[in-house]
């Protein structure tokens, strides 16, 4: 096992990895920008190196500075956390070339999964369902209709060159598709200077369900069940849970097997997550793979009673993972809420600033991961995540009740947070029932503020 590792990240995830190091008797090196000198990850690491100015490009994305920090501290491996350099194949390569282990998959696996078209091609090859649609741009209305008929309506037309909703059209019939095709193409050209559009099956009320998987260098690949991350705001996950309230054991098994198949196909090592879209009939479709630790990994840890960062370190060091090959039994339910420094009453605008008072929730079934403390200055340079609260219950209702209680005990003063908003979300009838889609928030109204 490594004697010392460097954590190329900040905030709660840096603290998370430092804690795993402490738990495994590995020395930890924090790196930080000048804005994070007073951070807990700097405080609780065994060593700390300032690597640059506050802008991420100058510090947490500054590969030479991070490698130099590893060299001057004699760190044997680098954990990238999530975000920043965690899915940067080049960084993984630089680490390797500098004889520093990258705690993550191989550069090839990162690159392969980073190329969405390549990844989809692989899925088709190994029989993992992808969202049906054209393989590339669609030439004209006729081809569009032909594809639409083969995959079934409704379909969505998307601009090949763009995003953000422009050039997007939903069609339910041949007729509407023909006109939509032309409009979308014209809009795409106007917006992105590229009239090319492609077609995919449209899911109006999908769920976002992902499978956690782990592979080690000895060929063992396991999946650790799903996390349901359907509650999102503009593609930012807000609530994650495991098990999913809508998955049947049969679908769980199928999805898990698909994840293992993917892992084996790319000889995947370390932790990865396969994101699937699940429709109302329980059919699932590969969306993408995240080749890193997820923000919401604690949900899986809590429901299975395991330590994913520990597994990451074991795997990166070439050891066997410490989990059995068979899927672990689900022994309850876990829910995570992300607590962000943002104002739910003003379009979730970020709210950096100094924390004036703090009370963290505690007691049975509550885990808190946070880098904030009373007096901490939340810097404006980074994302707004302040804390993750994970609650456990023997059944989903107990986990929800504990989340509602824990968020009620969670007091942060001095800056605005989404805590009261999240509390209403988990307390809502819709969430409790468990039946909703990624459009949950469109229908959700903050009742009592």
């Amino acid at each position, binding site marked *: 096992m490594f004697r010392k590792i460097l954590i190329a990240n900040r905030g709660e995830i840096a603290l998370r990895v430092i804690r795993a190091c402490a738990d495994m008797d590995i020395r930890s090196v924090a790196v930080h920008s000048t804005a994070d000198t007073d951070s807990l990850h700097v405080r609780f690491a065994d060593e700390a190196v300032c690597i640059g100015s506050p802008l991420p490009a100058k510090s947490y994305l500054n590969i030479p500075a991070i490698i130099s920090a590893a060299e001057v501290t004699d760190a044997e491996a680098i954990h990238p956390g999530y975000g920043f350099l965690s899915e940067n194949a080049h960084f993984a390569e630089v680490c390797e070339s500098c004889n520093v282990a990258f705690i993550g998959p191989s550069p090839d696996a990162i690159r392969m999964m980073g190329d969405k078209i390549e990844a989809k091609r692989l899925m088709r090859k190994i029989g993992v369902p992808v969202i049906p649609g054209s393989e590339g741009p669609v030439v004209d209305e006729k081809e569009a209709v032909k594809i639409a008929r083969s995959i079934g309506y409704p379909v969505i037309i998307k601009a090949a060159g763009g995003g953000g909703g422009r050039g997007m059209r939903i069609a339910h019939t041949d007729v509407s598709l023909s006109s939509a095709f032309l409009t979308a193409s014209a809009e795409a050209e106007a917006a992105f200077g590229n009239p090319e559009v492609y077609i995919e099956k449209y899911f109006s009320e999908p769920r976002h369900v992902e499978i956690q998987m782990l592979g080690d260098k000895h060929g063992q690949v396991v999946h650790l069940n799903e996390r349901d991350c359907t509650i999102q705001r503009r593609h930012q996950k807000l609530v994650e849970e495991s098990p999913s309230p809508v998955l049947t054991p049969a679908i769980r098994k199928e999805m898990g097997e698909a994840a293992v198949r993917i892992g084996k196909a790319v000889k995947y090592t370390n932790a990865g997550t396969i994101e699937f879209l699940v429709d109302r009939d329980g059919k699932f479709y590969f969306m993408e793979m995240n080749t890193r630790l997820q923000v919401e990994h604690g949900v899986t840890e809590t429901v299975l009673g395991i330590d994913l960062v520990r597994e990451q370190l074991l795997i990166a060091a070439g050891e066997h993972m410490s989990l059995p090959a068979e899927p672990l039994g689900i022994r309850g339910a876990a829910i995570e809420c992300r607590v962000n420094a943002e104002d739910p009453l003003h379009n979730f605008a970020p709210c950096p600033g100094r924390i004036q008072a703090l009370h963290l929730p505690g007691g049975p079934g509550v885990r808190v991961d946070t880098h904030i403390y009373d007096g901490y200055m939340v810097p404006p340079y980074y994302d707004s995540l302040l804390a993750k609260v994970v609650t456990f219950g023997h059944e989903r209702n107990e986990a929800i009740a504990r989340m509602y209680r824990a968020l009620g005990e969670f007091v942060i003063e001095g800056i605005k*947070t989404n805590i009261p908003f999240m509390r209403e979300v988990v307390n809502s009838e819709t969430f409790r029932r468990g039946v909703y889609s990624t459009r949950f928030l469109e229908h959700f109204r903050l009742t009592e503020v």
Partner: protein
Amino acid sequence: MSRKADSGTGGLTASGMQGIDLGIMRRLLKFMRDAQLTELDIEMEHVKVRLRKGTSPEAGAAPVAMPAMAPMLSVPVAPVAGSVPAGAAGSLPPAGGGGAPAPAAAVAPAAGPAPVAHAGPVVKSPMVGTFYRAPSPTSPPFVNTGDVVKEGQTLCLIEAMKLMNEIKAERAGKITKVLVENGHPVEFDQVLFELEPA
């Protein structure tokens, strides 16, 4: 005794302690005095101020509280009360039991619960129970505001564990205020009457 609608909507509108201006508080207090008000509520987007004079702690509302009942939001009342002249007609009551437990570390220490600031001597409840002003539902009250009472005279009953306990005046004087309504629960040390010494 405080009854809370919801024990934890914590931290919704997060305004720092800095937002609290004791100068404004004092001016509000003077305004109350001049206008002879006993209660003053102000509610704005980010702030909610409630001032009450001579109210019983039963009401439970912290005298000054941000919208959320976060513990750190409570305002230490003792110093403010202390700044009011002792002879003033009223002053700020302390945080009721439960409403506002935790004075923020940044604020002046207030060791132990702040004493209720009443204008003169008071009669407090020696026990937890239900307060009755009269010996029976059809009887007149033992005492009313303005009554002059003798030492040892029964002022009220407090029912605790099915027993009626007579609460007697420890000294002679005039009842200037009855602070609890008939049939309401009272807790230990809760002020029942204000009594002007004879």
